[in-house]
């Protein structure tokens, strides 16, 4: 662990206790994240990426959930910390941008007040200072005439503007880590690009690391330095964005890539869908979780679970018994 490592996740398990048995939503995830780095976590619905991001935040339902392993955020151990202890890092060390800007702002409080809140309560600013800073933040996230916008209700803003406000509230405590859980899913495509570019720019301005959770590979392609591909609660491939796109070894990663539209495709090209459905987390296959849907699956895949192994490139690992040949890789 080098000095500029911000987040260390080690063998993290999040298991829900359901009436039909334990459900391992996150099953042994380890990774590190450096300062000012952007990490993309990609996977299908139900691959455990949202639960993973919430576990890293230390946000779990009060009961029926068991978390083991370790999440070390700038020296603070999140796993096992009480709410009171976690409140010391929430907002100031780590902040979160939610998926749906329609529900993540309080509808009856003025926009400015929602940003003020953390400034006054957590940073102990005076009323006037907090207001000035809140207007500054609104300007930073690209809201025009921020002084006027300070007084409006969320209902008076469009979805994209609201997401900008959500980002402004997240930035208020100058966090070192920003968790963005599908920050653009609820927005129009044109606005999506704006919000992502904004996050990218803010990352440099605010000197923070960003974890971008998404199911959309197009979102992470140009904006992340590293990518984690998740399947059934585990990491199946991870590496630099370039390596994952160009030299991926895991058939699942390729399937995901082939499932996204590309401008270079001739028109009317059919997108390849991954056959079958994500596995039932209550009843995972004995071997590789992807084996039932994988074209390359062998008996070994069905019997033994592959562990992450190093690929040729530094920092690039994958979990597969029958990896794709090194040369085969579609440049992004």
């Amino acid at each position, binding site marked *: 662990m080098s000095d500029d490592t911000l987040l260390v996740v080690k063998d993290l398990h999040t298991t829900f206790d359901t009436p039909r048995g334990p459900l391992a939503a996150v099953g042994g995830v380890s990774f590190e994240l450096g300062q000012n780095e952007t990490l993309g976590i990609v996977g299908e619905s139900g691959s455990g990426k949202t639960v993973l991001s919430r576990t890293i935040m230390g946000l779990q339902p009060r009961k029926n959930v068991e978390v083991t392993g370790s999440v070390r955020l700038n020296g603070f151990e999140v796993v096992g910390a009480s709410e009171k202890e976690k409140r010391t890092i929430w907002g100031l060390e780590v902040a979160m941008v939610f998926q749906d800007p329609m529900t993540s702002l309080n509808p009856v409080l003025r926009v400015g007040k929602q940003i003020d809140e953390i400034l006054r*309560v957590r940073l102990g600013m005076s009323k006037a200072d907090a207001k000035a800073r809140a207007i500054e933040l609104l300007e930073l996230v690209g809201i*025009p005439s921020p002084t006027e916008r300070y007084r409006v209700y969320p209902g008076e*803003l469009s979805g994209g503007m609201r997401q900008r406000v959500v980002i402004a509230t997240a930035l208020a405590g100058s966090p070192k880590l920003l968790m963005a859980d599908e920050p653009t899913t609820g927005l129009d495509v044109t606005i999506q690009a*704006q919000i992502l570019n904004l996050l990218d720019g803010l990352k440099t301005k605010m000197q923070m690391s960003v974890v971008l959770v998404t199911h959309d590979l197009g979102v992470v392609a140009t904006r992340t330095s590293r990518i984690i591909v998740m399947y059934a609660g585990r990491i199946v491939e991870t590496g630099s964005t370039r390596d994952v796109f160009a030299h991926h070894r895991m058939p699942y990663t390729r399937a995901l890539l082939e499932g996204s539209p590309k401008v270079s495709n001739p028109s009317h090209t059919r997108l390849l869908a991954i056959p079958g459905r994500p596995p039932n987390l209550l009843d995972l296959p004995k071997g590789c979780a992807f084996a039932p849907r994988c074209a390359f699956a062998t008996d070994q895949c069905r019997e033994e679970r592959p562990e992450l192994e190093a690929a040729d490139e530094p920092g690039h690992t994958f979990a597969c018994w029958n990896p794709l040949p090194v040369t085969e890789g579609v440049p992004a």
Partner: protein
Amino acid sequence: MSNPNFLNELVEEASVHTQPLRKRRLGFLFWLCVGWIALNILGAIFANLLPLINPLFQNYNVVNAGPSLHHLLGTDDLGRDIFSRIVFGSRVSIEVSLGAMLIGFGIGAPLGMLAAYRRGTFDAVLSTVMYVFLAFPAIIATIAVLSFWTPRSLLKIIVVVGIAAIPLVYRVIRGATLNFATRDFVVAAKVQGATDRRILMKELLPNVAPIGVSFLLVGIATVVTLEGALAFLGLSVNPPTPSWGNMINESLANLQVNPWLAIFPSAAMCLFLLSLNFIGDRLRSHYDISEIKL
């Protein structure tokens, strides 16, 4: 698309110029109702200072008289001034309704919010208890308790009606809070480091308050009728103290001789209730920011 930024600018432009909420007015009728309620409440408070005929004074020279200049709304079968009895009678109605709602909301509302926010065992136990209480018809329960808890006093009525209101308030407030407590903005406040108390007071309360206020107004109206019903059954304050309910009750004996006796107190109660309901309804739709565009 010669200039790719053109589209972005257009989009920016459109989202910036989203119309601010139109300044909606509460309307003349709303203020009329507020004025009427204010008049009633002021009358009740300052009844002693107003140049009114003593509501208990029996003038046998004018019995069962219709409205006149001296007796604005006439007199009853004992020669007492109806107008002054209505003004003094409003005291009982208003005291009982405000007092009972104070108890009902003072206990029911915080419990409801807490239960909806915390969920789990606390909520399950509390809700079960409340639903058991709700299973008793409130009016029958109040009548039963008041029949046996003698001698009756205003305070006892307030306490009994107030306790009967707790589960109703609890249910409404819990339901309203539940609707908001599961939204992302609560989680968002939490990961900003807000304490539970702060989330309840600063995030949830402003959302629940409009619903609470309109329910409070409906509640006051209901208690006014309930007091009327109790008085009608002779379970409210003892005569000769006037209350709207017992005035209506007493009027029945002379209904054929002097219908004014029933009409005026009924009208006073009716207008009071109507105004409260209208104010509640108007306020709810006016302050319902949350549902306008979300």
